[in-house]
């Protein structure tokens, strides 16, 4: 359910983030903070990323995760949070986008 927030599952991104960070890995957290139109994942969804590009969770149906992971690795390096925005896929420009026609804003921060 969209209101559900069960921390029971081993794949819960926030539980994964806590255990990665506690074991000494550098970790970034990406969060969907706004959506327009038909977006695949609701506001509040998380993707957790480490410095090597390993990740858990999702912020879209797999459309933009690659781009978010790349940006997250930068954020881990710099420490400065970033706001990313993704819109409809533009195939001619080879830009990363959402095939569903929605738009999303994703906030990426380093876990301190």
């Amino acid at each position: 359910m969209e209101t559900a927030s069960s921390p029971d599952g081993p794949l819960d991104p926030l539980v994964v983030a806590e255990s990665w960070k506690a074991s000494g890995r550098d970790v970034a957290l990406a969060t969907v903070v706004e959506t327009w139109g038909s977006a695949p994942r609701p506001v509040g969804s998380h993707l957790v990323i480490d410095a090597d590009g390993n990740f858990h969770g999702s912020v879209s149906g797999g459309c933009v995760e690659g781009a978010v992971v790349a940006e997250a690795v930068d954020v881990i390096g710099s420490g400065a949070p970033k706001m990313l925005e993704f819109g409809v896929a533009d195939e001619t420009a080879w830009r990363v986008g959402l095939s569903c026609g929605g738009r999303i804003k994703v906030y990426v921060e380093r876990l301190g």
Partner: protein
Amino acid sequence: MDLKTLRELNAARAARRAAILLTDLADGSARVVHEGDEIGGELGVAIARAFRSGASGSVEADGKNWFLNAHLPPPRIVVIGAVHISQALAPMARIAGYDLEVIDPRTAFATAERFEGISLFADWPETVLKERPLDAYCALVAVTHDPKIDDFPLKVALDAGCFYVGALGSRKTHAKRVERLTVLGASEAQIARIAAPIGLDIGASSPAEIAVAVLAQIIGAFRSRGLAGKGGGA
């Protein structure tokens, strides 16, 4: 957000306590707000709304851009009575996305064979609910027809503020139940919250149909908690 804050958030979620992660989008600093914490101003209004609706979102308040990530516990249905209705209700609840567990001290009813893959406790509600307390994100469904088994969990559910409390039985049965719950100390307002006869009035007859009526009533109760609507359906 730092690790200490993340730990605090995950601990609240694991304990089924509603929490909101409040992030200042300018610098990523964050803190956990627990339900009942006093927060004033525009931000306080937005936080109260997020606790009611469970909806996360961005807010501009007090000259800053905030992101509120609402973490409400997943709704859990606790069924008293390992009866025929419960056997039908269990798979339906799972499909609808609700956790469900069945409690019944009568070991002839509460068998793993009758409830394969379902969380089942063959013990008295008094014992089980001590270990697994009810909260505002639980629905209590009492369907044993036996006051010895049903009455205690009904009273506990009303005291815990469960978002739904339903009890099987005719109006006559319920009238007697009201008398007993009053003796147990339940107020008139509390008793008025009990859905009895249980389930939406769809003329349900078979156990499976009654399960549909009960689940629909639970969903209705969950979706109408508080004031804020959820907006367009997904």
